[in-house]
């Protein structure tokens, strides 16, 4: 059986900007695959290629064995694409948007209703509301319903949770899990590192390059053992002192604390003692569990 998505050596430039630089990865059938990277990493460029909207400068991309450049007409019936902004007709109602997108794909909204029912049910209360008047979370649900209405084999979601509140975001990931159970392959991108753990496998992308591809837990295991939290009242003083310590590889703010990556000589206890002697009475350094974000920072650091 063909891979759901197969990207090999794909490069794409816009003028001087190398949006994608020899990107390689594959997505298995029925997988929930995450594309994790900061804004401007090249995620949307990659999506446009997989969605047959633009052609790669070099390399090939296939979806279910069909080439995105050569077989684009066949492919368009099989993929569901949800662009970065919730692209809906703001001046049309919920019902009109649904009817329009289903007729665009030559299906009736009823025949695939079972697929979208869990998502669309919340929208059914106001079919005559203009799409432009919906909240962010509701727009997201409507956009997803519109992308699913023709029962695509592969669902491409480009930053679907951007601009949506935390509750809706969490709900959205639950919906994706349900869709995956129905056998739909999902490629989802996000710049929220914490969402990465909800995917089966993830590819980390930065500056147009893939940094790593694996399951989230395997990736976190690759992290250094020497990762510590550091807190003190004078956070900025702590940051500059830790950075000047020769045993510290990297130190960066992480939420309310600092994350410190030490080399093999680094000893949390000794450093803490030394800092207390210099006047930082309340400093505390203790072991931290790594996250995808730490891994991302490590990957970028190693890449330099």
């Amino acid at each position: 059986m063909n891979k759901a998505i197969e990207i090999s050596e794909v490069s794409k430039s816009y003028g001087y900007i190398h949006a994608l630089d020899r990107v390689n990865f594959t997505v298995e059938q029925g997988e929930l695959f995450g594309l994790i990277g900061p804004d401007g990493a090249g995620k949307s460029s990659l999506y446009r290629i997989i969605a047959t909207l633009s052609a790669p400068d070099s390399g090939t991309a296939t979806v279910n064995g069909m080439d995105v450049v050569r077989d684009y007409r066949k492919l368009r019936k099989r993929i569901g694409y949800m662009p970065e902004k919730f692209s809906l007709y703001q001046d049309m109602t919920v019902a009109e948007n649904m009817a329009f997108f289903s007729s665009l794909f030559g299906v009736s909204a009823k025949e695939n209703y079972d697929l979208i029912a869990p998502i669309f049910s919340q929208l059914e209360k106001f079919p005559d509301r203009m799409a432009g008047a919906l909240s962010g979370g509701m727009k997201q649900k409507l956009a997803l319903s519109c992308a699913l209405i023709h029962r695509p084999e592969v669902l491409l979601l480009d930053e679907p949770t951007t601009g949506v509140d935390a509750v809706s975001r969490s709900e959205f990931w639950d919906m994706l899990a349900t869709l995956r159970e129905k056998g739909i392959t999902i490629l989802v991108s996000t710049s929220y590192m914490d969402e990465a753990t909800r995917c089966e496998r993830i590819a980390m992308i930065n500056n147009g390059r893939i940094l790593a591809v694996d399951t989230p837990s395997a990736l976190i295991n690759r992290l250094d053992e020497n990762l510590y939290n550091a807190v003190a009242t004078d956070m900025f003083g702590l940051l500059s002192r830790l950075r000047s310590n020769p045993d510290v590889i990297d130190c960066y703010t992480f939420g309310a604390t600092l994350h410190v990556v030490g080399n093999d000589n680094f000893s949390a206890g000794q450093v803490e003692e030394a800092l207390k002697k210099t006047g930082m009475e309340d400093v505390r350094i203790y072991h931290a569990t790594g996250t995808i974000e730490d891994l991302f920072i490590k990957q970028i650091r190693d890449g330099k």
Partner: protein
Amino acid sequence: MSILQSLIKKEALHVFRDRRTMVITLLMPVLLLLLFGFAISTEVNNVNVVAVVDRHTDETREIIERFSVNPYITFKGVTDNSNADNLLRTGTTDAVVVLKTSNGRLSTQIIVDASNTTVAQASTAYIRGIISGSDMMSPVLTQTLYNPQLKSAYNFVPGIMGMIFILICAIMTSVSIVSEKENGTMDLLLVSPVRPGTVILVKLIPYFILSCTILAVMLIISYTVLELPLSSSIINVILLSIIYIILSLSIGLLVSTVVDTQLTALIVSAVVFMLPVIMLSGMIFPIDNMPVVLQWLSCIIPARWYTAAMRKLMIQQLEINYVLQEISILLSMTGLLLLFALKKFNTRK
């Protein structure tokens, strides 16, 4: 519902839901036509005239009589020499006619307020005509063909129509397509199984229908309120206008493939297409009076050919074979524009 039907229905919803634009689109042509047809006229009417007469004779009495019955002149009466200057200064009168009789011979002088040259020239000509009418010279018969009353509406209607269609078709179409690009919905249309060509052509249909409605409204106003002569040539007028509408739609399409934001689309359509239409189409400034370079430039402006052909068909009421040149130029322009636009639209970036 078929794909085509639902695409058209969606487009129609966009057009009708945007009430403000809709009202402006339908009112503007009517307003412009009436404005240019009535209010803004290049004819000079109601010239205020006073006379200064040093000695009343039968001859002067006869001239004053003619002044007071002339429809273009408002005769304000007879005044004395010292007051005439004051009347001109205050704007009470536009011109003063001084009639002097010495030794039984009448000599005349026209003093005219030339702060508005158009009024000054026209009123001098009127006054001269009225005075010379008293001489026993052989009269010159002027016959003005096609527009016997020299109505300025006749001059403006073709030009305004040339402008309106560019305005509605080019600007509205380009803005509507570009807004789909901006909102990202164009991407959704393109990833659907519908062919890109179909997507685009369907976007043009509502604006085509809207333009045809406007054409109908403008023709009705022209032939009723503005009293343009109605004849069988109206069929050719409609045919020509439809060609021009399609041409304007192609311009809008081309603009939308080149630009990426609604604002740029608006500015490009307005500056690149509207201004030349007003300046170079011969609508206001006659093409023959332009510098040669501008005359050449005017050749690539579709409105020039449309306006010229419309004058022949609407005002002169000529047969269609008198405008074959204009029609073939407009048709080839349309073909070229459509070809460019569709080609540009289909390429995948």
